[in-house]
């Protein structure tokens, strides 16, 4: 694909049974970021996600089995590494993330010299709100991870992120497949590797499809699992990024 700017941007979109939304999301990304390549990682969908994404003009990688978000994203980072992309941007296929804000992520990356920029829902823009155990869990995660990454983070479970070359190399080697691994643990991994993490306020939309999980019991389970994931991630030693292809 011809690319006028020196920076090659790849939008990575993990999708599992999102045939209703993935096409529209891809088209929207193409409109908002015409220079970026778009890779949809079809995470073992049983519906027509793959076809919908192809029709919308995205490159599609089909995983033969459902690996979960972590597996789909590591596939995306390996793709970015192998095809020489400088920036990888995670965008959800369900339309929750506004592709118009990709520019903000990239600008923040340049301005602050960051390796990872998180699009935060709680940093001022928009009116995204949660309550109860889920809110406590998010508070706890923000507090601990802000300390670990030595910067103020308000939304550590956001899946809207931009990663620079160093982060791509690191995540191609080690992107956790555990529950919350794709958000919480990956930040710990990045901080341990000495990467610079920053955030920028973004507005989120209601999901075009699927439903958010706001039920209290599930939220309490989420809190417990968040604590466990944090404790284990923090006790782990640092990992080295891929320096030569083929060693992973």
């Amino acid at each position, binding site marked *: 694909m011809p690319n006028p700017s020196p920076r090659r941007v790849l939008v990575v979109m993990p999708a599992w049974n999102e045939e209703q939304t993935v096409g529209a999301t891809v088209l929207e990304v193409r409109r908002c970021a015409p220079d970026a390549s778009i890779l949809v990682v*079809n995470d073992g969908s049983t519906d027509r996600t793959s076809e919908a994404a192809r029709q919308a003009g995205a490159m599609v990688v*089909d995983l*033969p089995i459902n*690996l979960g978000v972590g597996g789909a994203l590591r*596939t995306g980072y390996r793709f970015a590494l192998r095809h020489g992309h400088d920036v990888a941007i995670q965008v959800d296929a369900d339309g929750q993330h506004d592709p118009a804000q990709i520019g903000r992520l990239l600008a923040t990356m340049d301005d602050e010299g960051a390796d990872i920029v998180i699009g935060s829902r709680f940093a001022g823009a928009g009116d995204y709100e949660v309550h109860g155990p889920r809110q406590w869990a998010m508070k706890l995660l923000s507090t601990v991870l802000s300390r670990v990454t030595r910067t103020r983070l308000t939304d550590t479970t956001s899946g809207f992120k931009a990663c620079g070359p160093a982060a791509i190399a690191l995540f191609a080697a080690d992107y956790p497949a555990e529950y919350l691994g794709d958000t919480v643990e990956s930040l710990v991994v990045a901080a341990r590797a000495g990467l610079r993490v920053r955030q920028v306020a973004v507005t989120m939309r209601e999901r075009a499809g699927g439903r958010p999980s706001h039920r209290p019991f599930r939220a309490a389970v989420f809190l417990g699992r968040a604590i466990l994931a944090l404790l284990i991630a923090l006790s782990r030693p640092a990992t080295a990024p891929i320096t030569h292809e083929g060693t992973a």
Partner: protein
Amino acid sequence: MSGYVFALALTVIVLVMLFLLMRRRRMREKYAAVWIVLALAVVVLGVFPRLAVWLAALVGVETPVNLVFAVAFVVLLLVCIQLSVEVSGLEEETRTIAEELSLLRFEVEHHVEASGPTREASSSSDPA
């Protein structure tokens, strides 16, 4: 005494079963090792029942059979944990292979597209 014979017979059956499984490569040695050691331990205990009494007195357990049960319980627990570890390793391996496979398939599809439809390779397999 017949109780000991019974125990011995059971142990022999287990050992033979393990041997057959390994012979047919249905089980690898690294998993059989624990069970072989365990079966041999039962044989030793069956032949020398006084050993259990002596061991129980040594560690301060009043009824020897309770010591046997406790040890058996711990060993089974360890085996279960070992299996969980192995399954986790397998899952990680499967994950890596699945990722590689999908990336390679992407390369192949694009290679075929780029080099033109010389043969009908592009229409062979579509994902589910």
